């Protein structure tokens, strides 16, 4: 996991730094409107020094990974002024946004993670909640008409573009349609001073549509794989043996086939999670949710190198942590897998 993590930081860093154009000009554009007695040249030089833009690439990379600040403001033992000690990924400290000087990235990201992580977790939970019974059911009824209809419906859901689905959901359930759910943000200003219950209900009703749209993308894929997994188990020898002892089909499926079939389903997390995090960009910007996806998107539009570095790396790291957790769960649930018996991720 650690080498993969290092690779990820390196890839993101290099990808962002391979970008053409002078990144400092972005910050200068943003500063242009701010009246200042310092002339532009000096300000630009200061900016370049502060963000190590003229330093060699390895130094910039170390600055980015951290945990020590390598800029002129860094700790005294590194030759800095001692104003700041920590910086970089390991210290969860990314400095200021380039486009908006004075706005620190780290707290902004922390604030937005508190929105995105619960949303993604809820979507993931919903996707699994629907996909497992649906997939298992359609495997058991394989070859019959109704299972075929469900499989077709899953294909349809799989092919739905999420931005279109989100717009359709707003159209149908939003104020212009059935007016069931609010469609913008995660809380309405009307409930500002209300009680905890009212506020919780308000947030829940705001979250319904984004969570469903987020879940829909992964749901179909998951269900189809659950179906495949269950089908494979049903064809295996031990199921046939169990059936031949005279046990009822339902009993065999419940006791033997299903538990085994659902084991690999945990590892599907590895493919669902990145898709979910990536999908949050579209869903959050359609529903106007101040999450990490929208933040990354806005940073991109502003060409804010610092924000892009931070958000992309963090989402990759989050994904990796999710994968690691699923590996752990797999190892706990499957007695055949023990530490050291398989390759390190």
């Amino acid at each position, binding site marked *: 996991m650690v*080498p*993969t993590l290092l*690779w*990820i930081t390196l*890839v993101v860093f290099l*990808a*962002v730094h*391979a*970008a*053409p*154009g002078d990144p400092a000009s972005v910050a200068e554009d943003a500063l242009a409107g701010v009246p200042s007695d310092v002339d532009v040249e000096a300000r630009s030089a200061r900016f370049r020094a502060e963000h190590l833009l003229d330093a060699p690439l390895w130094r910039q990379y170390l600055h980015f990974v951290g945990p020590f600040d390598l800029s002129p403001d860094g700790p005294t033992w590194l030759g800095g002024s001692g104003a700041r000690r920590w910086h970089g990924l390991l210290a969860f400290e990314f400095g200021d946004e380039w486009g908006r000087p004075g706005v620190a990235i780290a707290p902004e990201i922390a604030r937005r993670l508190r929105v995105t992580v619960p949303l993604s977790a809820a979507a993931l939970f919903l996707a699994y909640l629907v996909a497992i019974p649906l997939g298992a059911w359609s495997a058991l009824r394989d070859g019959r008409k109704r299972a075929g209809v469900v499989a077709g419906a899953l*294909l*349809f859901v*799989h*092919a*739905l*573009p*999420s*931005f*279109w689905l989100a*717009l*359709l959901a*707003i*159209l149908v359930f*939003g104020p*212009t*349609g059935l007016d069931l759910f609010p469609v913008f943000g995660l809380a309405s200003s009307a409930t500002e001073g209300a009680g905890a219950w009212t506020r919780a209900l308000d947030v829940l009703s705001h979250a319904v549509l984004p969570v469903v749209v987020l879940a829909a*993308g*992964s749901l*179909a*894929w998951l269900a*189809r*794989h659950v179906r*495949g997994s269950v089908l494979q188990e049903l064809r295996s020898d031990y199921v046939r043996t169990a059936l031949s002892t005279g046990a009822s089909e339902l009993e065999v499926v419940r006791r033997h086939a299903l538990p085994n079939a659902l084991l690999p389903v945990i590892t599907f997390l*590895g*493919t*669902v999670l*990145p*898709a979910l*995090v*990536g*999908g949050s*960009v*579209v869903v959050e*910007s*359609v529903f106007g949710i101040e999450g990490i996806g929208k933040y*990354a*998107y806005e940073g*991109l*539009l502003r*060409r804010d190198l610092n924000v*892009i570095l931070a*958000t*992309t790396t963090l*989402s*990759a790291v989050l*994904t*990796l942590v999710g*994968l690691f957790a699923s590996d752990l769960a797999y190892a706990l649930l499957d007695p055949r897998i023990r530490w050291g018996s398989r390759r390190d*991720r």
Partner: protein
Amino acid sequence: MTVDARRNPRVERFLARRGGRIGIWTLAILGTLAAWAPFLANDRPYVLVAADRGSLERARDELAPLAESLARIAHAAEDAGNAASPGARESIADEARGIEARLGVLETATGAAALAELRRALSASRAGSARSADELVTAARTVRDAFADGRLVPPTVRTFPLFASLDALDVFCALLPLAGLAAWSLRRRLGLGRALLVACGSAVALAAIVGIFAEKAPFAAPGALKAAVARGVLQVDQAWFPPIPFGYAETNLAEAWRPPTWLPAGRLDAEGRSPSTRDVSAPSAGRPAARYGEPAIESSWRHVLGTDALGRDVAARTLWGGRISLTIGVLAALLLSAIGALLGAAAGFLGGVADTLVSRTIEVVLCFPAFFLVLCAIAWTDPDVVPVPFAIVLVIAAVGWTSTARLVRAESLRVAASDHVLAARALGLHPARVLVRHVLPNAIGPALVAFGFAAGGAIGVESSLAFLGLGAQVPLPSWGGLVGEARGADQAWAWIAPGMLVFLAVLAWVLVAEAAREALDPRAAVEPSP
């Protein structure tokens, strides 16, 4: 993989599946509509029988000043007494050439009797005498008056503006459906692969010929031809417009956000007002007017799918939009399949360091929320270095090759252990040759299946990018971009149709991939992540 020339069992098995047939048909229809969009929705007519006053007027306006300047030069030369000096003769020749060029244009007009006079005066004045130059000025004025009186009338010419506006790429696109049809009917005789190659090759050749010989068409700007008619520059006898007489970039601000015909609000009266409206949310730029070749304002055939914020026809834009979306989908899938198959086969066949390298890279790439990476790369590419559509293709391929590589790697591990590969190696063939000739063809099956899923996925990614405003920055619209431009519950009609087409295209590719999987081997491949 040898292809049985008469009957490919895999193709037959693929076609036996209903999903595969539906998918192929859907893709064929969508692709044909997109490829033939210039013939279905265009602001230029197929055939135009018209008199172009514009060029004649320009020639006429320039004639008299040219003649006068020639006369001035001749007078000056005579006053100085050196009519035969080389400098004077040269400038006289220059002006005479200018007059002759204008005369050439004017002579296409009917009733050109006055021109003969002019031509005679011109040849006399070439000698450089001031008297004949004065005659020339008089003659030029006569021609100008003749034109103004209507004695000189521009000729009526039959032109083909729509076809003249096509470039080589358009021609290639237009030929593609025909090439597909030809390949399909020749598949029994040549085998599907070779038939496709022949058909596409001829399409490329034809398009190249057109590209070499095509000239720049007049009235190239969107709506320029209709505007010329409105100004009276073009006097049209007869014009045959496409079924949707609107270009994809032809704006009409007075008609912004016109609802589609099937909504009650979309039925307008001759004044352009809706009898049943809530006011449409557009900045109204005056009373809408139908331009030449368009159905009347109140016609229900005018904008069947409505118009967008700039009054552009949604149906036309949706038709044209498929070009970007479908092309990027196929190109990205081709590229990522090639990368994935090659790397996967190399990893599985060579093993050792190559395998470790590829497998580790796959693991790292899989960890990325791919869409983030694509967003990054697109936002940072310099459109001057890499055109954005290519950048999108490259990035989708760079992020998406992993699932193909994994499948092909597993398959080539199996193939590498088989006897014919052993035999090839025992014969002393170079490993690269063994890889390309013996391992890859036998391990490519899963890659073919993954291709379908990849093409669907690439269309999805491209549409999402375009929806976010980061799509291919070309004048052509793309389906995702159309949805993104029009989003909003008030104008749902403007984004429902393009979004539906994205959905259909992705669905068709998934159906094709499913059928291909079942046809090749029921357990050959799993689809990549959503």
